[in-house]
């Protein structure tokens, strides 16, 4: 882990203030992205993965607010930047693509106008040069007859094509970091394969770093180098992708892998995680996962564990891996058949 880090997020806190209550959507999130690599942030609905990503670019609107932490991009804390300075970062050094390309493209402007906008703001290109560059970008992302496409509107394109346009826009200024928030969730699986491959190729070509936000463990396994697993606003596990799948440590990560129906192997039965994610205003005091965890002890229910190093570049937020662990000592050893929930 001596690689250079392009992004280091430290103890990031983003809260929403609703009717006098503070909802801690992102509650002390720490992770980093090595240069040229892909970090996956994986978690279920409400885990805070998208809010973490939006926080990096400070795209949090009222009633939400970033209330603490650091977002170090190439050594500079973005939270110290003014709005004018941030505007120079967005779409230029850091770009983002979203899940739903139809709602993130402006329906009343042509594809060309929308790509040119970023080029004009950040590169000062005029209409003619901007159009040329737009055509080039559309060609890069594999859109057939790009010269015709620049004059078309978003509704004239299919879902996969729109996502390619989004990627072209995101890449317009050769960003150093691309944040992809569920970029293929709305797409069919054959189109998803095309888009993931495209992101990978472009990353290799341009040496870009990527933050891939997804709920799909298959996408994580295929595209990411490192993975942060989030649950209820916190990172519960961080590891390189091979370690995470081979030797998952946090009971939540194990639970996710056990509940996943797989297309590549036959499974006898799925082992779900019992219960449901707690509501944001009813967060448990101790470990957030304790009410659903098959191994939880009194300690887990009363005190929150910290995110600690457990191996070479691996971190886990769980009492099991600490000296304080007072439950069954055998659960430290990874044996999937033992790690089942009781219902």
């Amino acid at each position: 882990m001596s690689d250079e880090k392009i992004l280091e997020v430290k103890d990031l806190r983003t809260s929403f203030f609703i009717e006098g209550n503070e909802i801690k959507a992102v509650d002390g999130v720490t992770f980093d992205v090595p240069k040229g690599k892909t970090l996956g942030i994986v978690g279920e609905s409400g885990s805070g993965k998208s809010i973490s990503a939006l926080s990096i670019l400070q795209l949090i609107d009222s009633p939400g607010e970033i209330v603490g932490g650091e977002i170090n991009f190439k050594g500079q804390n973005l939270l110290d930047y003014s709005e004018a300075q941030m505007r120079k970062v967005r779409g230029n050094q850091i770009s983002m693509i979203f899940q739903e390309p139809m709602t993130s493209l402006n329906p009343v402007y042509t594809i060309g106008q929308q790509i040119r906008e970023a080029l004009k703001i950040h590169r000062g290109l005029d209409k003619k040069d901007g159009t040329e560059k737009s055509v080039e970008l559309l060609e890069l992302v594999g859109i057939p007859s790009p010269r015709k496409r620049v004059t078309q509107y978003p509704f004239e394109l299919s879902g996969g094509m729109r996502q390619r346009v989004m990627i072209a826009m995101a890449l317009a200024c050769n960003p150093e970091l691309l944040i992809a928030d569920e970029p293929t969730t709305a797409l069919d699986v054959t189109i998803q394969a095309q888009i993931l491959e495209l992101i990978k190729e472009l990353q290799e070509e341009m040496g870009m770093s990527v933050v891939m936000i997804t709920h799909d463990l298959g996408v994580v396994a295929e595209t990411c180098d490192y993975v942060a697993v989030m649950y209820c606003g916190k990172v519960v596990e961080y590891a390189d992708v091979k370690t995470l799948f081979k030797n998952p440590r946090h009971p939540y990560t194990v639970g996710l892998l056990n509940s996943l129906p797989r297309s590549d192997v036959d499974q006898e039965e799925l082992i779900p995680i019992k219960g449901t994610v707690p509501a944001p205003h009813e967060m448990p005091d101790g470990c957030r996962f304790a009410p659903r965890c098959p191994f939880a002890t009194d300690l887990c229910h009363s005190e929150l564990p910290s995110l600690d190093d457990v191996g070479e570049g691996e971190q886990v937020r769980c009492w099991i891996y600490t000296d304080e662990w007072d439950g069954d000592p055998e659960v430290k050893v990874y044996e999937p058949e033992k790690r089942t929930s009781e219902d």
Partner: protein
Amino acid sequence: MSQKKELLKINNLKQYFPIKGGILGRTVNNVKAVDDVSFTIYEGETVSVVGESGCGKSTTGRAILRLDDPTDGTIEFDGMDLLSLNKKEMRKMRKDLQIIFQDPYASLNPRMTVRQTLNEAMEIQNAVPRNERNDRIAELMETVGLQPHQADRFPHEFSGGQRQRIGIARALSVDPKLIVCDEAVSALDVSIQAQVLNLLKKFQDEWNLTYLFIAHDLGVVRHISDRIIVMYLGKIVEIGDTKSIFENPQHPYTKALLSAIPVPDPEKKTERIFLQGDVPSPIDPPSGCRFHTRCPFATDKCAEEVPELRNEDYMTDGHAAACHYIKAIESGEHQPTKETSKVRDV
């Protein structure tokens, strides 16, 4: 499964949706959502229909319940011709034929408590005598893993997974024989999805239920199905038991579809077949084999002749694919006409 009883038999089902145009509002064209589809479902089994957006899988499910009336074809359920029934008779029939929808938010009435919702279903179908209904509701709530006292809550008081369980409870309340599950678990997080899938499996074992599962998630499909139907642009391209479809797929589309699924194992090497372009429009589908515009093996013959579903001697019983070249591709005699596949390195 030696004495299999045919529960649902669909023959040459066609579902065209007219496109109106011009000042007179005449039908100018049709969206051929389902175009000549035939299959049979046996009692107690789970059959999945898979395919990408616009392949006609949901339309097929809706046509079976006559939520949309089919353009042509026959649907036989338990020996009864469904399309000959009038509205009233069809409503009675739906006691045996239930559907669970994808979106648990949109498919429950927000102004009715769960008790009212379940009561309504039993009232309409006259499934349970009035004085036994409250007991039945309590039992149903427990069956799907909810507390009986939660029956007096409104849908917004439940989470997505819980709402989907209410949808299941509603379907079960009338003791159906067949349940069409239209993307019933797609909107759920994976940990909750596993709970619901296990529940559906349990009910099937207990009550010999039959499921028609409509899904795009092939992991879910592999887990739950006995047999699988693969559709592309309104037509069945391959049908067979789950093992044959996943381990010995024959149609080039099925192969591409399976190879495109991201596998949750970073150390597995996979060969991926990349398909060019998007699914063509069902308004004006390609001639001949509808997949020929994207198929790596396509020849001139594919653009002209519509392939029939066929079973070759090396395939298992009941496994069939609609492609002119399955045998020649299997033996290596017919090679790809376009470069599309790529091995992913780990």
